[in-house]
């Protein structure tokens, strides 16, 4: 099984409040702790399990981002992926979801693959648009918001989250799968994994090497334009008190006042 996992480096969501730089109109990614997106760790976990259950499997992680994103790829390699590809080019900055999908599709199409994993949305941009766009550009079925998959005889069956329950869906391979970000917990890389990750192949490509026209990606390829950024109105500070035995009564008072009781 040739497995591809799309992973993104993001400002560490457990450590950073996401801010937008008013000048560049982009998310602040400099001078903040960065991490492999925890949602992508979960989809990688699923890929690792599939690869462990299927003899002769390889996992390639693919990412688009600045040079620094090699750190996120190394972490994925330490978790157990076999090789990494980073597409990095100054002209990529400012890409929208569609350009991102075009770059990823070009990187993925360089070799054969059976299944492509994404998370259902990233932690920073969280448009959730890349998996569907990627599937469309690759001309593949998308099994979306999936909790787990089973692969047998060239077909894939998946459990998909829907608003009030779940669905069982199936298609042939190759296919794109987006893993619902609430699906699972990811393993921590062990010391052995961290050591071996340093020796695993990690290729860094620019747009020319991918054969992509810079005009179709980055700021110039984006089909959306930000006109204006304004501050969100902050909620007025509330009353926060330790429970001295009257906590429940205080809540009940408020519920009564709002008409909920």
């Amino acid at each position, binding site marked *: 099984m040739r497995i591809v996992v799309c992973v993104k480096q993001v400002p560490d969501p457990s450590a950073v409040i996401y801010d937008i730089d008013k000048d560049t109109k982009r998310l602040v990614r400099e001078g903040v702790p960065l991490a492999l997106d925890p949602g992508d760790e979960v989809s990688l976990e699923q890929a690792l399990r599939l690869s462990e259950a299927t003899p002769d499997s390889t996992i390639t992680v693919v990412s688009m981002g600045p040079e620094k994103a090699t750190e996120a790829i190394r972490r994925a390699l330490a978790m157990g992926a076999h090789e990494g590809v980073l597409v990095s080019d100054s002209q990529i900055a400012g890409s929208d979801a569609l350009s991102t999908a075009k770059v990823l599709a070009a990187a993925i199409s360089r070799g054969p693959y059976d299944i492509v994993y994404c998370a259902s949305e990233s932690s920073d941009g969280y448009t*959730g*648009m890349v998996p569907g766009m990627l599937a469309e550009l690759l001309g593949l079925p998308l099994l979306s918001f999936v909790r787990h998959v089973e692969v047998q005889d060239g077909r894939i069956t998946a459990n998909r989250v829907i*608003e*009030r329950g779940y*669905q069982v869906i199936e298609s042939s391979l190759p296919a794109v799968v987006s893993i619902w*970000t609430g699906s699972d917990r990811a393993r921590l890389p062990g010391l052995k994994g961290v050591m071996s990750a340093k020796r695993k192949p990690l290729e860094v490509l620019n747009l020319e090497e991918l054969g992509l026209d810079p005009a179709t990606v980055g700021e110039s390829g984006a*089909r959306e334009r930000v006109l204006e950024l304004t501050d969100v109105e902050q909620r007025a500070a509330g009353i926060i008190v330790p*429970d001295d035995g009257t906590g429940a009564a205080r809540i009940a008072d408020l519920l009564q006042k709002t008409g909920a009781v």
Partner: protein
Amino acid sequence: MVAEHAVWVYGEARDGRLTPSTRELISRAATLGSATVVLLGVRAEEAAENAGRHGTTAALVDPNPAYDQHLTTPAVEALCYLIRERRPHVLMFGASYHGRDVASRLAARLDCGIIANATEIERSGEDYRVTAPWGERTIATCELTFPGVRLVLFRSKAFSAEEKPSRCEVEEFQAPLSAEAKAVRIVETAEEESGGPSLSDAGVVVSGGRGLGDAESFRKVEELAQLLGGAVGASRGAVDAGWRPAADLVGQSGTTVKPSVYIACGISGAVQHMTGMKNAKVIVAINRDPDAPIFRSADLGIIGDVNKILPQLIEEVRRRKEW
């Protein structure tokens, strides 16, 4: 005078009835131009009958069962077909799981891009301006630049559903569907019918998180929700632990709620959770950690043991209801 625009909504229905999110979107569409709703699949005609109640003047309906049997792509092909024939100015989607799938795939097929997570849309000359929250402290006003239809995906609860009766012309069409459209087959759909109001519509939502400790303690959350005539929600901590189904998840990956009261029990308040509930009118939080981020957004926060306070609160509410 600006010419009237064709503003379309990709409609979704359940059991022949428009979803709340669709009703919100068509209400807004009707204020922007001549509103058309596209409805696909079995019982689509039934759903279309109600569209006129919210100011929609036309419904385009294809009752082909293929839309219910196969994921995403049949709807993408139908929309592509309609857009090429009729050239609407705007196509609005709701951010349901299905809505996100169809919108993203369509944006790539038309090579036109999309604005996601939007909360407002306004006419600006011959074009549109769309607002969306960006990061935690900023709101962005954006426009789409590629010629052709404007695709916008809205967060649920961005608008309210307004009653505005109008004559709605229902037109049936048959989209030609390719073999590839049927690539992903829906084998089975299992939906849980909860007794109370649905999570996205409830006036009161009581949510529990990992801080409750076990499934047994989560029963108290359910009890309080029932007592208040509200719905039960969950953080990912509780869903991960298996105490509640994924369908109850509140937040970025789950449902967006906008109740008059939101009670968070043993939930830390991670940004992905807050995204889905921060627009509640009143937020109450119970957490034993005084530094829990949830307190930053709470109107009333009680620092203490949720398993002690929740039973007391249930008693207190019960007593006051009997009065």
